[in-house]
């Protein structure tokens, strides 16, 4: 495997459950970094806390495993101090959108060049299956024994509403699409958000009697459709996939260079 030098092999097999979608995202990301020929010394991954957050221990980049919900502000500090680094910030749905929601929207607004990946398994995996702001109404979870009455965020709409310049969604089933989208997200100059719908067979699947990894992946296959596709048009209940936003706006680190230029002029 060409990307063997991109991982910390001694920690494999990894900690995730059999069939956990987080592994597929790791897999895809490594393929992408490998294909893009990015120098691992230029790569920096910052994660929060959660099953998904354990991903930073597996990649042989500069890695920072921070606090629950705090990956983005930590990454912001790194990027501002070392703008040449390629920042990858994977987050769980709780990490990104529950406790970390404020940092998420502000990162979208600030448009600092990094790639945020929301690994959305619709559950707090690490703590054993509580509902998350992405679980959605009607879901069963350990803290929603009578089914959740919370509507979920549409992560794409939220990112868009907060001003993100690159917003995409795909699933762990759509592995080729995932690679393509991750590639574009990394190439994008500015803050890019990729929501990947992933399976948590252990808690989400079991609690909601939706089966194991394979069934959950089939669910994503059958209940999503590409943006602009006929399938989507015909069935409003499908979740759209694809790139929703891709536009230019001044990047924060570059803008800050102008501040420095101005200030040095004034000295």
């Amino acid at each position, binding site marked *: 495997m060409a990307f063997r030098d991109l991982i910390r092999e001694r920690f494999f097999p990894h900690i995730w459950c059999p069939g956990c979608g987080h592994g597929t995202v790791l897999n895809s990301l490594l393929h992408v970094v490998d294909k893009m020929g990015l120098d691992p010394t230029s790569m*920096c991954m910052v994660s929060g806390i959660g099953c998904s957050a354990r991903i930073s221990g597996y990649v042989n980049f500069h890695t*920072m495993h921070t606090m629950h919900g705090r990956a983005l*502000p*930590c990454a*912001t*500090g790194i990027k501002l*101090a070392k703008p040449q680094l390629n920042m990858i910030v994977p987050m769980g749905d709780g990490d990104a959108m529950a406790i970390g929601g404020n940092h998420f929207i502000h990162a979208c607004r600030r448009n600092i060049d990094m790639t945020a990946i929301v690994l959305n398994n619709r559950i707090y995996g690490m703590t054993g299956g509580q509902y998350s702001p992405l679980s959605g109404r009607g879901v069963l979870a350990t803290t929603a024994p009578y089914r959740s009455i919370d509507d979920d965020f549409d992560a794409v709409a939220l990112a868009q509403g907060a001003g993100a310049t690159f917003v995409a969604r795909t699933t762990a089933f759509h592995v080729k699409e995932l690679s393509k989208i991750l590639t574009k997200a990394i190439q994008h100059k500015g803050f890019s958000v990729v929501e990947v719908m992933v399976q948590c067979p252990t808690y989400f699947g079991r609690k909601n009697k939706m089966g194991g990894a394979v069934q959950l992946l089939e669910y994503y296959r059958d209940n999503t459709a590409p943006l602009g596709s006929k399938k989507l048009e015909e069935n409003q209940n499908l979740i759209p996939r694809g790139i929703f936003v891709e536009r230019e706006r001044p990047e924060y680190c570059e803008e800050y260079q102008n501040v420095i230029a101005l200030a*040095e002029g004034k000295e």
Partner: protein
Amino acid sequence: MSATQQDVRFVQGNEACVRGALYAGLRFFAGYPITPSTEIAEHLAENLPKVGGTFVQMEDEIASMCAVCGASLAGSKSMTATSGPGFSLKQEAIGYAAMAEIPCVVVDVQRAGPSTGLATKVAQADVNQARWGTHGEHSIVTLTASTVQDMFAVTVEAFNIAEAYRTPVILLFDEVMGHMRERLVIPPAGELPVTERLRTAVKPGVNYHPYLPREDGRLPMSDYGDIHRYHVTGLYHDIWGFPTEQPEQVNKLVHHLVDKIEGRVHELARWKEFYLEDAENVLISYGSAARSARHLVETRRQKGHRVGLLELQTIWPFPKDLVREKTANAKNVFVVEMNMGQVMAQVKQAVDNPDHVYLVNRVDGTLVTPTDIGNVMRVIEGKGV
């Protein structure tokens, strides 16, 4: 500007802190405004870009502290500044910095709390919070100052200590010190020692261990983006930085985190003393309260009273032996502070005769006065009120 104007300024304490930070090599500041610390952010917004550094106003205090952690790991000397409510919010990330051994400086310009309290009034009641505000066993360094000039100097020290011991350092100032203006002399570069970050000498291809102490106890760092790639986590970790649950390794790390600071009390102690040699009544104070104490001491000395002052610039780790030694011959010890006796409790533990330690305090948002001290002394000396 002429040379004189460049070196000597008439500034607020908060600006002196900024000047000290820049002198020490600050290159990254992230903050969120809060009275009475805001001037620190404002001066840095103007001055950091002049030296190519980065100022960023984050969405809140949590994000600010997180950004400081990130920037420090990326190689920049980093700082944030706040006051009580923001200091409370930063606690989780301060604990992260302690655990991951990230050098950084956190300024808390104290105001009256709890809660919003009195945003523009002085207090010194975050002393114990500075030590115990975050969860879990750890240790921390905390410094204070009582003149604008000292605010400059201890800020430089704070960076030096942060770098030398890979630890967050708390600068515990207060509203009076932050807002007061005095003359500040900025020494020429090189006059005050500045501790640079110790970076690893390990060559490419050779294993670098971010958490393997050298013989002298220091842990060389490697900036994110440099040749060595390694892992940082807030979990218990091994010398590589990778998570471990091994009891022996956990135990070792706890002791390392505590000992690297508590074991260096003498090295870290900073203080000033006035007329202690023959003092029967020893005042112990810090921050703006120490100005009132000094005032009283000077006035009483002129009248021939045997009174002296020990000003603690290092509060944590608490210099127990120093306090014991300096008060050894005192009949009475008066701790002057603006809280309900947080440092007094430490002093009581340090001295031989805790029964002769008295508190002179004020917790109403105004600066404790020399008269307050005098009044308590009268009572203790049996002279009534």
